[in-house]
Structure formats: structure tokens, C-alpha cells
């Protein structure tokens, strides 16, 4: 059941809702600005930590997250 996510930085608006709602705490805010001027977030996970539960994607307002499962 291991998974991973891919964040589309261009779409991200830095709302950090994914950060807030990832039950495993795998997404982190950064001080990186994207082209639109938002601080993007990063997925930081060791293999297997992400369960591909999709909750981050479910809450992401920008449809910026894709989720993959083994």
C-alpha cells in the first residue's frame, strides 16, 4: 500500500491545507516562491511512509496533487 504524490508547483497556492491534513505529516511548507508568487509545499517522505490515502489531494483546492499507489 505504499504510495507517493506529485505536487504541481505551478498550480499550488501555498494554502498548506495538505500540510495540515496529511495524516502522516509528509508535506512541508517552504519559502520557495512559484511563478505566481506563492510559497509552494514539498512532499518529503521516505519510501512507504505515504499510504496513498489521497486525503491531501481531496482537500487541495487547486487540484495540484496527483496520488500514486504501488
Amino acid at each position: 500500500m505504499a504510495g507517493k504524490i506529485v505536487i504541481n508547483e505551478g498550480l499550488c497556492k501555498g494554502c498548506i491545507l495538505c500540510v495540515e491534513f496529511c495524516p502522516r505529516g509528509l508535506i512541508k511548507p517552504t519559502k520557495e516562491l512559484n511563478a505566481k508568487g506563492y510559497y509552494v509545499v514539498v512532499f518529503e517522505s521516505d519510501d512507504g511512509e505515504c499510504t496513498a490515502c489521497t486525503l491531501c489531494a481531496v482537500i487541495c483546492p487547486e487540484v495540484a496533487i496527483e496520488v500514486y499507489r504501488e
Partner: protein
Amino acid sequence: MLIKTVFAGFGGQGVLLMGYVLAYSAMLEGKHVTYLPSYGAEMRGGTANCVVSVSNEEIASPVASSPDVAVIMNNPSLERFQNQIQSGGMIYVNSDLINFRPLRGDVILYEVPANTLALEVGNDRAANMVMLGAFLKRTPLVKLETAQEVVGKVFVDKPGVIELNREALLAGYQSIGGE
């Protein structure tokens, strides 16, 4: 002389306040002045801007299709305004937040590390006043002292931040070299 300046950035950066302090100061100095903020749907997504026109004569249009000066606080605003500025005009950028530079050679660019300087005087929320101070050095539409006086009026309900903002104005003013 009629000078139109656009102040632009994110909503929370105090860009409207920069313009307001300039406009108010111009009024106090007996100049003709108009201040036109962006409004409505234009502000969705959190960006904001305003145009301040200062002149010795009656001002026809408060709109600026090509401003003489731009004071820019974030990337998207620079993208939007960089090509609208008059040839020969000036662009002030907050170099702490803006990670590219306009390609044009026909404008004068001032880089102001506004957040850094603001932090130095006490709080980086005063970055806007740093920018305004810098602006006043090379675009002396009003006296620095007038702007500092106006800051006192603007923050009359929050006297605690008046001194900070006055110092930020000064820090910005002094950050630009020359006379």
C-alpha cells in the same frame, strides 16, 4: 509636472498604504493629487495596486496606462507592470521578494532589500514604508518629513507603530545612494 506612480504587490503587503501616504503627503504640500486603487475582481487572488498621480496642475485622469514610476513588491506585479512603465521611467523592486529583473534597458531600476531593512528597524511588516522611503529619495514628489508626519496621522489609532514606520521611511530613503 505630472508624475504617475503605481504601487503593486500582494494584498497583505501594505501597497495601498504606500500610495495613500504619498497621496496624503502631496495633499498636505498643496499639490494636486489623485489616488486610484485597484478594486473588485481585480483583487481576487490577493494582488493589489494603486496609482498615485501628483501634479502642480489639475489632474485629468487618475488612471495610468503607462505610469512614470512603479514600486513593486512581488513577482506577479513585476511581471504585470514591467512593460507598462514609460520609457525613461523608474522601477523600484523589493529585492528581498522579487527573484527576477525586468529585461528593459530603458528604465532605471532600484533594488531595495525592503524586508531586510525593515527587519533591521524592527519589523519586516514595515517593508512598505522602506520602499516608500527609497522611492522618495529618487522621486522627490514630497518631502520625507511630510511622509513621516503623515505616518503619524495614519497610525493615529496604533501609536505604537508610528516610530517604527518613520524609521522605516528613513531607512529606505538612506538606502538609495547619492544626494
